[in-house]
């Protein structure tokens, strides 16, 4: 699939270099872009990668609106973009269901919508969906931890889970996947607490969790940004009897995995360069082109990016595409 090649050919910013004749300048198009507030490393990388990708094309005018975590405000912003008559919209909704109707309005107005990551509720609301696999991310984390513990021969392990913002649906999906992954090995989560994607909250929650369980065997932390705080808490408590798996795949986390001198042994990627792909697709759609790597006239209607498990062994492959 295309994301594999993306991962290897991407430059540091995650923007794909021109390579095929599709990248030759075509009709001038305006791409509207709306995403939640970039208050967090992964989300910031999403916006940045989109912008960087758009800059690669001389024929793209890129319009990004203020990131917001208020669905009401995001709806207004998308409406504003519709009013500006952009050629194509790339939307990462704060809440997919909440933004469905406005996306549908755009489609009805003849503006194709690329749905990024958090999925809209109706297929009528988007032309193409590009996103990661939250369930798969949890699943892979669970499988990795289960396998590692089995290999160590731990019989009834204490497994911790530091989730992200708990009233987001993606958090729920990740946790569900994690549960299922562990279940395959007959394990279950021993303690689960939610932070809010910030290093600050990660530190706070983890320092308390370490008090709650005087022994842990493994921890999955949903997000590498909050992971900085989680790791700080572990170091400050002087605990190292367990290993940890991260999430999202930040450069910092991957460097640590590579160095292999902390409890962090792996991270499950949630690719932040998906926005670059989305911009690429958006441009093609607006210019009524097809995708030359694929056979056929039309672009696919959905593209699920794989949540790879990055360990010491394969970290070099992923490090260049990681967000910082």
């Amino acid at each position, binding site marked *: 699939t295309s994301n594999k090649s993306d991962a290897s050919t991407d430059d540091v910013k995650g923007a794909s270099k021109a390579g095929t004749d599709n990248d030759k300048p075509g009709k001038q198009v305006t791409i509207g872009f709306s995403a939640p507030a*970039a208050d967090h490393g992964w989300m910031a990388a999403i916006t940045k990668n989109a912008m960087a990708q758009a800059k690669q094309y001389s024929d793209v005018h890129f319009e990004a609106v*203020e990131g917001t975590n*208020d669905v009401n405000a995001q709806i207004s912003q998308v409406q504003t973009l519709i009013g500006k008559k952009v050629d194509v919209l790339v939307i990462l909704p704060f809440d997919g269901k909440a933004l469905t109707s406005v996306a549908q309005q755009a489609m009805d107005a003849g503006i194709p919508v690329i749905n990024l990551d958090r999925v809209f509720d109706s297929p009528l609301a988007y032309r193409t969906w590009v996103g990661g696999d939250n369930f798969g991310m949890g699943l892979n984390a669970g499988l990795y931890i289960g396998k590692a513990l089995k290999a160590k021969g731990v019989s009834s392990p204490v497994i911790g889970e530091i989730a992200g913002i708990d*009233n*987001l649906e993606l958090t729920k999906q990740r946790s569900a996947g994690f549960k299922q992954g562990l279940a395959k090995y007959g394990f279950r989560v021993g303690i689960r607490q939610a932070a809010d994607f910030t290093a600050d909250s990660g530190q706070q929650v983890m320092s308390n969790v370490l008090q709650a369980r005087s022994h842990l065997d493994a921890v999955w932390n949903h997000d590498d940004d909050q992971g900085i705080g989680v790791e700080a808490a572990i170091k400050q408590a002087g605990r190292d009897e367990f290993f940890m798996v991260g999430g999202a795949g930040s450069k910092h986390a991957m460097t640590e995995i590579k160095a292999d001198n902390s409890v962090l042994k792996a991270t499950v990627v949630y690719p932040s360069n998906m926005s670059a792909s989305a911009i690429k697709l958006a441009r093609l759609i607006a210019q009524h082109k097809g995708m030359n790597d694929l056979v056929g006239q039309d672009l696919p209607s959905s593209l699920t990016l794989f949540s790879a498990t990055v360990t010491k062994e394969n970290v070099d492959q992923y490090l260049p595409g990681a967000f910082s």
Partner: protein
Amino acid sequence: MSQQTSPPGGSGPLPATGQGSPSGSARQTGSSPGKGSGPSFLGHMGRVRNLGLFVVLVLLCVIGALTSGNFATRQNALVILSSAAVIGVITIGQTFVIIGGGIDLSVGAIVALASVWCTTVATQSYGLGGMVFCALAVGAVVGLINGLIISYGNIVAFIVTIAMMASARGLAERISDRQSQVVTVESFNSIASTKWLGIPLLVYILAVAVVLGWVLLNRTTFGRRTFAIGGNQEAARLAGLDVRRHTLVLYVLSGLCCGIAAVMLTARTTSGASNLGNLYELDSIAAVIIGGTLLTGGRGSLIGSILGVLVFTTITNIFVLNNLTTDIQQIAKGLIIVAAVLIQRRGRRTATP
């Protein structure tokens, strides 16, 4: 004695200084809204107290029109208004509460709870009417609980409503199991998509709420008593007002506004979720304060609050139209707010003869 020099507008030496604003001179802050008793609705808008804010809004529109060709369109104006509608309705309730000497930090959480409750499968089975009723009832009941604890339990509003903020949102999470609940009742969703004469229903709702709120605040005994209670609670009590019951009603009113806002927001997003209305408490309080209402109560203007909401919404709209990056938007927002208040005060001063 009766022909004494009694210059009009000569105010006493005592300033009603706004909280936290150390006025060096005696007649700067909390200046009077000028002459005239109860303001008239339209007259009010352009007059003394809100003139400044009005000027700010006009200035913003000029900036918007100059920087973006898409600003001065009918379409864009409607986007601004619909976006302002939800927070506008909440701000009406908040204005009453703050004028009455209180504060409601739970508005965002109430919106979330009402939205989640009215979109459960069970509620949706009752159709449009059931859902709207449910949202309003949830809002009013949560407001009632706030009000009961504040007025009869006698705990400061800040604490009670911050506690409610946590509890109501927690309950919303519990009910929704942290999933967005999609609305399948089409008639409900059409609340947000319906237009009459080209104007969205949401804007009509806001307009009706503003007019009703204004009449309630300025033309009824309830409204005038609200000012009295916020301005001097002891005096109100000695005048025979039932301060507790009145306060209770203020919070119910605020809860009810949140219920209405929940209906509007839920229809707009076609789903209910426990993370709706995040930070609406700060947004609504900021709009009320920038609109000239004293945080300590007793003085204020509903029109000012609505202008405040419009100012904030317009700022965001202009940012989007001009394609600014988020960080620059944030920095600029802070500067604009301060500038707005300065302009507003200038306007107020010059308007006072």
